[in-house]
Structure formats: C-alpha cells, structure tokens
C-alpha cells in the first residue's frame, strides 16, 4: 500500500463510513429507528481503531511515516491521540444508540456528524502543517457546533449552538491570523520549517505575535480561562452525550496541536510562552473552580470543572518536552475516561428531555437508582483526584512535572485549587446520598432500562478510570514512548511554500 494511503487509513475509514451513513439514511423509512446507522458508525470507528493499531505496528517496525509532501506525520504521538479519539467516539456512539427514543428524523445525521468530527480531530493530531491543522480544526469545530444544537426546538439548544458558532468562529480567526503571521515571519506554515525559520528570522516580534495569536485560538478550543465564557452556556444546552464527547475529544486534539506547535515549532520562544501559559493556567484553575462553586445546574458545574481541568493540563507545559508530552497524554486519557463516564451517567439519568437539572434535583437519587448513582459518585471522586482513580495520578504527574521544572508556585496554586474543587464535587455527591427524594425523581419511572450498549460504554469508562488509577505506570510508559519520535518533525526537511517569497 502506498504510504499516502497508509498514513490516512483511519481518517479515510471514518470519512467513508460517514458518507455511507448519509447515503443509507434516506433508505430507511421516516419514523423507523435509526439504530442500524448507529451500529454502522460503531463498526466504522472500530475499523478505524484497528487501522490505527496497524499503523502502530508499522511505526514500531520502521519508524514514523510521512505522507503528502510532509503534511502528515504518523508517529507514536499521533497514534496515541488517534486511539484516544477513536475510543471516546466509540463510547459516545454506544451511549447514543438509545438516546433518541422517539424516532427523531435527524438521528442518522447525528452519527455521520460524530464520525466527520472525529476525522477532523484525527487530522489535527497527525498533521505537521499548520494549514492542515486549521482544516482539521474547522471540520471538528463545525460538526460540534451543529451537534450542540441537536435538541431542536428548545431555547437553550439554539442558544448553545449559536453562541458556540459565533465565539468559535471568532477564535478561529485568531488562529488563522496567527498562521498568517507565522508565514510572514518564516515563509512557511510547516512546523519543521517554522522552527528553522524562527531561528534566523529578522522579524522576531512578528513571530512572537504569531505564537500569541495561535495560543489565543487554541486557548479557546481547550476553554482556558480568559477565553472560557462560552463553556457553561454551550454545555448546558447541548445534549449530554455530545457534551461528553466535545469536552474531551476536541480538547485532546487541541492539546496535541499545542504540544506540537509550542515544543516543535517555537522552542526558541520557550521562555516567553511559558509565562503566557502560566497565566492561562492560573486563571483557568482559579476561575474554573470558583465559578463551579456558584453553580446550581449540574451540567454548568461540570463545564466549570472542565475549565479547571484545562488549567491543570496547561500547568504541565512548564516541564521539558518529554515530560510534558507524557504527562498531558496521561491526563487527557484520564480526563476523557472520567468525564465521558460522568456525562454518560447524566444521559442515562435525565434522558433526552433532561428533567434532572440542578443539584437539588439529584437529592436522594441513590435510593432510586443505586447503581448509576454509585458510578456517578465514582467518577466524581476521580474528578476530585482521590487515590486509586485516574484523576489522582493525572494531577500527581502534572504537579510533579511543574515542580521538576522549578515552577513550584504553580504546583501550589494547583493544589490549593484541587482543595477548592472538593467542595462542589462533594456537594453533588452528598446530594445523591441524602434524603428525602425530590418530587422530580419520585415521578420518574424507577426501572430505567439500561441497555447492553450503554452498559458496555459505562463499564468501559469505569474500567479505564480504575485502570489508570491502579496501573498508572504501565500507561505512563506507553505515553512516554510517544515523546521521542515527535521531535523527528524537525529533522524532516519540509518543503516550504514559495509564494510571495520573491
């Protein structure tokens, strides 16, 4: 097989399945269930995951694969994020099969959009050319804008989609302007060529402005603090399984881009951007945790918690490259497991109509749904960072990375914030296990059926959270392998675009 085809195999499989779903959708009579299309999407994601494993085998045997004039580079780093994205999408699809109870006519498009979004995220993590990153970012963003508004006819859903779209486009403009300035300073948009160009550029100020602009654009995508305002409103209005997806997979992809860009393209400005990253991290942790304290709505609470977790991940950028990459890989995996899990439980508890909203609505839920409440409690404990959960080791590695690089004060701020975070997670947890039952819960049917796919998805997320907490070393060794090859990007001579260089 040609290397070009081989390098794009997972993305191709996902996009093809998406197109197949679009073609098959009109063949199913209106009013019939769209579940077969969901199973098709699951098959496509599985096939794509197997393709990623095949790539891993090839990379282990003969080193990184580059394709399409060095726009795509498949190495251990991109394979890790490919696998992570494929798993998140798989779990989300399993949980969404029964999400649309009434045969809603656009359930078929839902599955196609999830797959296309995953294609975009995969492109983001495997490309070493900023224009390609931009296209991938746009594909993933546009599909999440639409997915956010999927509960049509509800005011919060429209608000969520429109707000996300407008603010997201604004942030993308910053990212694009950053790429343009990079081109202005170095004459290329390829990461390897930018690194080489910035070393000899005569316009360092322009290059520095480009880094700041890119940081703003990606800061929005990971919902880091001054750029976080959209998060609570969007998460509140979007369907719960979609929130689980979009709070983890696009963020993981954006962090992958940030890692590649900051460490491989702009290592020269490290002393400068480390300051910006530290400001973003402190702001995200503080605003996220203090904001969450004030929330009554559970989805808004988890939105603020996701801002805080983005802050913890940013702390790891202060470390040296290999430590930062392995720490962030570990943290994104742990955060994906526990956050997707938490939103899956919310999906099961409150359903399409989302009857249970505020913390008070959840009072006494453990009496009615003991199993699901226990799972939610477990995920909340992991989000706090209690030992024997993935969240604990994620935080542990992040803060020790900051201490190793001499940013002890940042680790202390993070630890103080983890203390604050206990309050709001525990408030929800105690509400679950206290009497009396609220009227809303008493009214809902107690035997909410948990179907096989949902049970599978819940088990997978809970097992992943537990595994990351009990056997962190094995997974950390795997993530550490992701680092060395990601620096190869610098040695590959990338062709530079020569327009406007006359």
């Amino acid at each position, binding site marked *: 097989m040609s290397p070009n085809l081989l390098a794009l195999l997972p993305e191709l499989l996902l996009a093809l399945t998406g197109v197949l779903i679009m073609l098959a959708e009109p063949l199913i009579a209106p009013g019939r269930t769209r579940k077969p299309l969901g199973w098709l999407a699951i098959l496509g994601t599985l096939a794509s995951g197997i393709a990623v494993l095949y790539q891993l085998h090839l990379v282990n045997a003969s080193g990184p694969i580059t394709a399409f004039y060095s726009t795509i580079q498949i190495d251990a780093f991109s394979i890790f994020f490919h696998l992570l994205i494929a798993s998140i999408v798989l779990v989300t699809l399993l949980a969404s099969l029964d999400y649309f109870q009434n045969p809603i*006519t656009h359930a078929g498009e839902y599955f196609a959009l999830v797959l*296309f979004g995953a294609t975009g995220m995969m492109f983001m993590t495997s490309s070493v050319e900023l224009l390609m990153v931009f296209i*991938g970012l746009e594909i993933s963003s546009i599909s999440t804008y639409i997915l956010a508004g999927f509960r049509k006819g509800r005011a919060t859903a429209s608000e969520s989609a429109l707000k996300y779209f407008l603010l997201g486009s604004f942030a993308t403009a910053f990212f694009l302007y950053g790429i343009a300035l990079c081109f202005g300073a170095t004459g290329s948009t390829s990461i390897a060529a930018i690194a080489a160009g910035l070393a000899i550029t005569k316009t360092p100020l*322009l290059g520095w402005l480009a880094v700041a602009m890119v940081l703003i654009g990606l800061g929005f995508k990971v919902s880091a603090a001054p750029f976080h305002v959209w998060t609570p409103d969007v998460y509140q209005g979007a369907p719960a399984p979609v929130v689980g997806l979009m709070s983890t997979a696009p963020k993981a992809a954006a962090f992958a881009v940030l890692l590649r860009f900051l460490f491989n393209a702009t290592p020269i400005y490290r002393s400068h951007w480390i300051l910006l990253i530290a400001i973003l991290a402190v702001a995200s942790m503080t605003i996220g945790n203090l904001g969450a304290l004030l929330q009554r709505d559970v989805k808004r609470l988890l939105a603020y918690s996701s801002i805080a977790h983005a802050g913890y991940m940013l702390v790891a950028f202060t470390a040296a490259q290999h430590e930062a990459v392995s720490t962030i890989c570990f943290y994104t995996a742990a955060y994906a497991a526990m956050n997707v899990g938490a939103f899956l439980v919310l999906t099961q508890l409150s359903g399409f109509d989302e009857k249970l909203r505020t913390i008070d609505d959840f009072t006494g839920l453990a009496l009615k749904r003991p199993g699901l409440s226990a799972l939610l409690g477990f995920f909340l404990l992991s989000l706090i960072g209690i030992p024997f959960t993935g969240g604990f080791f994620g935080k542990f590695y992040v803060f020790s990375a900051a201490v190793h690089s001499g940013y002890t004060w940042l680790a202390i701020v993070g630890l103080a914030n983890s203390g604050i975070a206990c309050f709001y997670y525990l408030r929800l947890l105690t509400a679950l296990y206290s009497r009396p039952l609220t009227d809303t819960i008493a009214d809902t049917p107690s035997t909410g059926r948990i179907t096989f796919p949902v049970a599978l998805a819940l088990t997978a997320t809970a097992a992943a959270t537990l595994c990351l907490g009990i056997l962190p070393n094995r997974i950390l060794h795997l993530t550490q392998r992701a680092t060395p090859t990601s620096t190869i990007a610098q040695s590959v001579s990338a062709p530079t675009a020569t327009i406007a260089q006359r």
Partner: protein
Amino acid sequence: MEIALFIIFGLLAVAGALNLLFQRHPINSALSLVVVMMSLAVLYWSLGAEFLAAAQVIVYAGAIMVLFVFVVMLLNAGEEDRTHGSRIAYIAGIPGAAAIFCLLSFVFLSERSHLGSTQIGGYLTSAVSNISEVSHALFTSLLLPFEVTSILILVAILGAVVLARKEL
C-alpha cells in the same frame, strides 16, 4: 497612480465596512459588503495577487453576496430595531479592538525595516505568473488540505440540512 488607487480603495473598504455596521436595513448592509469585497479585490490585484483578486470577485462578490441578497429578500427582512447592545461590548469590546489594532500597527511599524517594501502594481509586469505558482503549491505541497476541504464543506452542508429541516 498605483499608490492613489491603493489609498482610494483602501479607504473605500474601510468606509464600506463601517457602513455595513451602521446601516439598519439588512439589504443596505449586504450591499455595503459587496463594496468591501470589490475594494479588497482591487487591493489584492494592485499587490500582484491577480488570481486572488479574480477569485474574490467571482466567489465572494459574485456567488456568496448574491446568495446573501437573495436570502435577505426571501425572508423579507425589514428594518432592524436599534438596541443599545450589551454594555460589556462597549466597555471591553471597543478598547479591546483598539488595543489589537495598536498592537498590530506597532509590530508592523517596528519591523518595518526588515519586512521590506513592495512596489504597488510592480508585480503585474514580472515574468513569473502568480497563477502557476498558486496552482503548483495547491497540487503538490498543499494537496492534502485542498482535498480535505471537501469534507469540511460536506459537514457544513449536512449541518445546514439538519438544522433547517422541519421535524416530521
């Protein structure tokens, strides 16, 4: 001559953009956007990017703006009510925009000596064809982004269908 052209159309673009914001009737705003697009096309052309100028006229001013105007007329959108907007937009938005403008001007002016100068209109007589260089980049080093854009457009179409379709 060329510098006069550049200044005239640069000012026209800014004036069109301001008019777009201050007009209360959607159709007037859409038509001011046409002015902005056309002025930008002239600016591109005078800087030697004749392919970009042609694409700007054909795609933006031609196709997209016609669609805009059609939709505005189909919806029969009347005059907007003038709201005062949110206060935070005035407190944070205007100084923020001004700050970004100042920052960019400062960076470009301070790097002026290294960025070099361009001779407006000078490229039109140069032997190297702009179009051949653009197409060369598009079909070699930037082939993949060019192809993957099709998925981007597909997602956008799918989204428009999903959000606009009536529930049965």
